[in-house]
């Protein structure tokens, strides 16, 4: 991995982390007219996968989708405004956190229905194949979604037709309040690839270098017509399922504290320092730059107008 990529991965992870923490504050302050499912602690997956994608490659995302949008290149102002339901958002404020689309940069939806993105991703990949173009689609979903019918149907069709798609399972240990051990028949969801005759990997999703390497190989396979890959990225959901979820009735503080020790950003910072790519001072400069960017985006969202009632049925703002 070259120096530029290493720094870019750090920048993407920090941008996601800081944007999410800012949205947590905005949620408490009543600025978000919906629920909010935040991605803190899982940043390495979106960053590591999307760093391998071109602008014209597609992603489908889940209810926990802000990080995927940022990693795929969405402007923070557009993202935060959409989450706040403002007219300046990527869907004119009519979609919100769980309906964020931006086809121009390949974001084909943060989809609130669990498992809903996988059939769409499979369809997008089929379209690319039928058109004869080398576009790749990535579907991000959680451990809970891997027990849905849509997972199994999508993997089967994608493998049967050798479609250019990556199935990225973000195993953050919890489907809402249900631990993966209580809901899932296999220890490693990656092994489910075998059932559908495709490579199935299980990797440490908190190590951005591992995610980057696995996704790189899978994207190459997809682009060269060799078909889909399933990659399970083990991680941990640091926050409650949604903002305001008192998660202490199904998990312990010790478990969360222990998970915080495996922070993906701290890990990558140590790697970059020991590689001589970045020092503390450089890291602080990057921190300050992104703090500013996030604060500006939050102000922009806050000061943006709401969509006008008379524009409720106007689609002009969408699909740009």
């Amino acid at each position, binding site marked *: 991995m070259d120096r530029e990529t290493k720094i870019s991965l750090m920048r993407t992870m920090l941008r996601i982390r800081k944007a999410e923490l800012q949205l*947590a504050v905005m949620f*408490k*302050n*009543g600025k978000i007219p919906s629920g909010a499912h935040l991605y803190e602690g899982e940043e390495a997956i979106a960053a590591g996968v999307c760093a391998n994608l071109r602008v014209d490659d597609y992603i489908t995302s889940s209810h926990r989708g802000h990080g995927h949008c940022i990693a795929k290149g969405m402007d923070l102002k557009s993202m935060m405004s959409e989450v706040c339901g403002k007219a300046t958002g990527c869907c004119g404020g009519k979609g919100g956190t769980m309906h964020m689309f931006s086809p121009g940069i390949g974001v084909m939806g943060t989809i609130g229905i669990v498992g809903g993105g996988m059939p769409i991703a499979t369809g997008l990949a089929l379209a690319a194949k039928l058109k004869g173009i080398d576009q790749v689609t990535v579907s991000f979903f959680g451990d809970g979604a891997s027990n849905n019918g849509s997972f199994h149907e999508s993997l089967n069709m994608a493998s049967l037709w050798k479609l250019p798609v990556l199935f990225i399972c973000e195993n953050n240990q919890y489907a809402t309040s249900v631990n993966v051990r209580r809901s899932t028949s296999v220890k490693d969801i990656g092994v489910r690839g075998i059932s559908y005759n495709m490579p199935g990997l299980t990797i440490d999703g908190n190590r951005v270098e591992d995610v980057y390497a696995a996704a790189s190989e899978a994207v190459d396979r997809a682009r060269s017509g060799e078909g889909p890959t399933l990659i399970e990225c083990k991680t941990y959901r640091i926050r409650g399922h949604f*903002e*305001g979820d*008192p998660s202490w009735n199904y998990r312990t503080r010790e478990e969360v504290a222990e998970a915080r020790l495996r922070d993906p950003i701290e890990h990558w910072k140590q790697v970059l320092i020991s590689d001589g790519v970045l020092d503390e001072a450089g890291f602080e400069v990057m921190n300050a730059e992104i703090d500013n960017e996030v604060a500006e985006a939050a102000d922009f969202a806050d000061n943006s107008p709401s969509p006008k009632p008379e524009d409720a049925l106007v689609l002009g703002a969408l699909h740009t």
Partner: protein
Amino acid sequence: MAYVVVMPRSGQTMEEGIIVEWMKKEGDQVLQGEPLLTIMTDKVNLEVESDYSGILYKILLGPDDGDIACLTPMAIISQPGEVVDVENVLANYEAGR
């Protein structure tokens, strides 16, 4: 930089909450993510975690204050050693609401 801690709107139907107890007292150091206080909504008892690291400078409301409307300031968090003009911080918060 001083931050206002408000009664969070922890759900789309939540209009008000009651403070059950403060887990920190004025002058205590708080870290981002640490529980500050427990509130009771019409559905659940909930710990409110701090979004900021700093000092719990001033507690404005407590368990005796009954129902508190969402977004009402409950406390102010400052930086260590910072002297805060509480009235001014609250006025700025109101202006930005």
